[in-house]
């Protein structure tokens, strides 16, 4: 599947009566990798969940390749090409690794599981293990690989490195870099480890208190060290 463009206009969403993200607007070009940055609790995860259709949509629009998808349920958005890897990973703990991956194939032949094992060789070694028996890093690989098997044209990755050992982080980011380099998938990446995110991203959007407060290229972000201090409360090199 070819990479999709994403267009978000005046998005307002939340949970129940509570509005979390407000008037967010940005565009992502096909094949682009965008890092979504911001402090904890600023609405990054809610933004991702809203794009995936898991929150209450209050207003605004979301378009994938210019086709509006904000009225569609989660399953239809996934069918339209959106792949979502949540912060909670959400693997199926009582299914084996192979079965977890199989569910993500969306009708493609079982032989295509090899793609997942090629991306994350560690999963091949663990294919007979239950999802619940995997380490946090392996669960993250499984969740990511399962979503990628569905050939998403837009991949939403929510804090894939959270709580992982450095060696696993390297492995995951290397796989993500390979994926981004192919240009076959547009990626929206929420990540607290800014330096790692900037290694693969070519564009940055910054969220504060549910609103988009800055967007620009990674070069612009790096060129202005005050941005990281202002919006993340950290040094630019973190």
């Amino acid at each position, binding site marked *: 599947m070819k990479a999709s463009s994403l267009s978000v206009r005046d998005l307002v969403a939340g949970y129940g009566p509570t509005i979390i993200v407000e008037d967010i607007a940005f565009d992502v070009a096909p094949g682009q990798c965008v890092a979504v940055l911001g402090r904890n609790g600023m609405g990054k995860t809610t933004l991702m969940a809203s794009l995936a259709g898991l929150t209450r949509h209050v207003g605004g629009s979301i378009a994938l390749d210019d086709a509006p998808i904000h009225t569609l349920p*989660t*399953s239809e958005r996934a069918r339209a090409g959106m792949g979502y890897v949540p912060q909670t990973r*959400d693997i*199926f703990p009582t299914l084996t690794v192979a079965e977890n991956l199989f569910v*993500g194939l969306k009708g493609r032949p079982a032989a295509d599981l090899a793609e997942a094992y090629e991306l994350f060789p560690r999963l091949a070694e663990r294919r007979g293990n239950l999802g619940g028996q995997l380490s946090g890093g392996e669960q993250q690989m499984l969740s990511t690989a399962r979503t990628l098997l569905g050939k998403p044209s837009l991949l939403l990755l929510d804090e894939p490195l959270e709580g992982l050992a450095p060696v696993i982080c390297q492995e995951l980011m290397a796989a993500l870099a390979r994926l981004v380099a192919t240009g076959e998938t547009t990626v929206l990446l929420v990540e607290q480890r800014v330096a790692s995110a900037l290694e693969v991203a070519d564009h940055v959007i910054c969220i504060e208190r549910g609103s988009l407060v800055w967007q620009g290229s990674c070069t612009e972000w790096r060129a202005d060290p005050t941005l990281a201090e202002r919006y993340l409360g950290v040094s630019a090199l973190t």
Partner: protein
Amino acid sequence: MKSPLASDLTGIAVVLVLAVGGFILFPDNLAFLAGMMAVILLVVSLDLVSGVCGVASLGQAALFGAGAYGAGIAAANGLGDPLLLLGIGLVAGAVAGLATGAIILRAHGLPQLVLSIALVELAHEAVNKASFITGGSDGLTGIRISPLLGVFAFDLWGVTAYWLSVAVVVVVLVVLRRLVRAPFGMLCRGLRQSPVRVASLGQRAYPVALKMYVIAGGVAGLGGALRAISTQVVGLDSVSFTLSAEALVMLIVGGTGTIFGAATGAFVFEWMEHIVSVANPFHWLAIVGALLIAVVLFAPHGLYGSTARWLHERRMRAPRADE
């Protein structure tokens, strides 16, 4: 790790050994054993719905009853071929599964449970009121079953009904074990754990669960038809809340989500009920209650589920030949 195929073959071998053993050791109880196998199908169908898909149900007897009355009414009206009656039971159960599942699956958790109870009570009352066709509280009689394949007559001792029941149960167990491991079964198991995740993978939860509910209806209906064929009478108890609740108890006793666990639970519960109720007709329910408490406390995954886990862990701990 033991392969799924090996587990299936072992399980089926155990069922066949028990079937042959039951035939040899208890020739006077074949009718009871045939009835037990009908209940096994009911509990297995509940396992598909609750154990595999995570749908709360206390109304599975509505589907069992649909099969029993479907086959029973057909037989009472001249359609006596047992294989045809099994087919009628299967279809009646599946249609009942579609009708009730379409309602039950709209809710979740406790409301879902209440809906399932309401539906089985409604079905019970409908069958009771339609006495002109169902026999009402007197039960449906006048069922005449033709010889199986034109050769094996359904005798008083229940030999034909017994072997027909064994064959049906074995076929159903084989098919369902494969179904649960197939991509559709994986999706259903995923649904039990996280419907949101399944939706994120591009699958709508409702149609997937409804499809499984219809399949479970077919299995329960098959069980109902088997009971109608083997006892040649269908009573209101076939479509009762009590039977639904007992099926859930049997499922908990055996263990959920494995199919074999459901069969084990039904076998153990029915057998205990048979033995204990004869030994102590007044307090047998107390003994069954004690069994349930013991299972929940000491084998929380059910008799089959806990044993399978214990064997798996033992295999994992055992030193391998290459070490």
